[in-house]
């Protein structure tokens, strides 16, 4: 049962996360800039996640195609499979599943890294040396995440389409030309763009929640463990809820 204390605590955490977000944005556009650290983080967070993104994209595309294919076959609708799969991938599945997966990988990683720094007083050392932990630790991770997620989501989409193509070719004898024509005809620029924007927003959510919990980590190694679990759960739930509202917005404005 939710009591008043946990409700107040929830709003306090939401407030602190929002404040960290605005501090991050403010620090992003004032000197000093840490561009090299952003690229370093893109390498760690983005490039390091490519292999797992390929696996999830391929799995999503092929499994969806398989299920839709046999499902629609009963009604003679196999030819609609490329349209359904590609549209789902572009609008929802690629950004959402890639982000959820990346939340597990990099969100927990951020919380663990910054949390360990916090419990060993390295974050205090950053402050004591006249610099800001938000600027040094959060800003590079935030932008690396915002930049990397749409790119990873795009990879996931492309690989997913390829996975669907392979299944369509082997299971439903669908010609490659027909499949590709259906995909390019169905998925419009707004669908691609919507997916990319969503991914960027999810990237920001993952980074801010991961860094927030890292900076709040206490109680040594046990605290670090608890923080990583909290980040995965919280960012996944936040992504899922945010996804609904963004999807609704896109449908209202872009159709």
């Amino acid at each position, binding site marked *: 049962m939710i009591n008043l204390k946990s409700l107040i605590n929830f709003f306090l955490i939401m407030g602190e996360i929002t404040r960290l977000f605005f501090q991050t944005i403010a620090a992003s556009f004032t000197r000093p800039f840490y561009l090299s650290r952003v690229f370093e983080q893109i390498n760690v967070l983005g490039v390091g996640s490519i292999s797992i993104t390929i696996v999830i994209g391929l799995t999503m595309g092929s499994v969806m195609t398989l299920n839709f294919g046999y499902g629609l076959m009963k009604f003679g609708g196999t030819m609609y499979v490329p349209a359904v799969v590609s549209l789902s991938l572009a609008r929802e599945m690629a950004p959402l599943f890639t982000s959820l997966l990346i939340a597990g990988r990099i969100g927990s990683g951020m919380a663990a890294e910054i949390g360990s720094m916090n419990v060993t007083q*390295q974050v205090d*050392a950053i402050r*004591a*040396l*006249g610099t800001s932990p938000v600027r040094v630790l959060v800003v590079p991770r935030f932008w690396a995440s915002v930049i990397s997620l749409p790119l990873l989501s795009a990879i996931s989409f492309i690989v997913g389409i390829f996975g669907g193509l392979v299944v369509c070719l082997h299971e439903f004898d669908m010609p490659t030309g027909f499949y590709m024509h259906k995909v390019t005809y169905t998925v419009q620029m707004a669908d691609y763009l919507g997916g990319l924007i969503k991914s960027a927003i999810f990237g920001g959510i993952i980074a801010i929640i991961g860094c927030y919990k890292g900076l709040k980590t206490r109680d040594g190694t046990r605290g670090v463990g608890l923080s990583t679990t909290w980040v995965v759960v919280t960012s996944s739930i936040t992504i899922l809820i945010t996804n609904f509202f963004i999807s609704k917005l896109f449908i209202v404005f872009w159709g």
Partner: protein
Amino acid sequence: MKERREKILKLENVHKSFGSKHVHRGVNLELNQGETIGLLGGSGTGKSVLLREIIGLEFIDKGKIIFKGQDIQNLNEKELQKIRLEISYSFQSGALFDSVNVFENIAYPLFEHTKMSLNEIRSKVAEILEMVDLKGIEELMPSDLSGGMQKRVGMARAMIMRPEIILYDEPTAGLDPTNTKNVVDIMKKMTCLGYSSIFVTHDIPAALELCQRLIILNDGIVAFNDGPEEFKKSNDPIVLKYKQEVHYAGSEGEK
């Protein structure tokens, strides 16, 4: 006759609580230019907290901390960052950044706050490492260093910006006699160079050797504030109790 020196730091009626625990109940303290004071007291009396308050890592509940005429409590984070270049903090654990080597640890404030070239920074780091008797360890990682070496690297990092005040948080804690002597020798060098410092310690012989004044924190207030000779001769019950607690054999001889 005692030399009259300028007061550079003044704590007035400082109060601090953590929940129901009152750590400071009106601490008054002054630090003169070029002076080293020893801050003594049992565990949990708020010695390290006082250092953190001075550098703005903790906020006080009531009172004033005046450095060069400005109350540190009234400064925002950006203004505090400037103050932290003039007051540096040497952490008890060293608090070295464990993902970068010794050079990058010590050079961190120089990269952040100066426009020095890489060669200038290299020579400055080499110079300060020589001063702490750790010549040629620039490429080593913090995990490759012993506890004593980590503390000395932490001290080197705290000194590299040539601050006006250095706050040492138990720099000799947990060290063997050889490492303790090394650390005390470094602090002596800094005192000779005219730096002001506050030395939190339980090591009475080291404090007597280094400090012009000793302060005992007890029950949230300054219970003793006088020179080393007066400390040795003191029959104040709090001083005697503290000497007994830390097994200071020297106190018996002085009676």
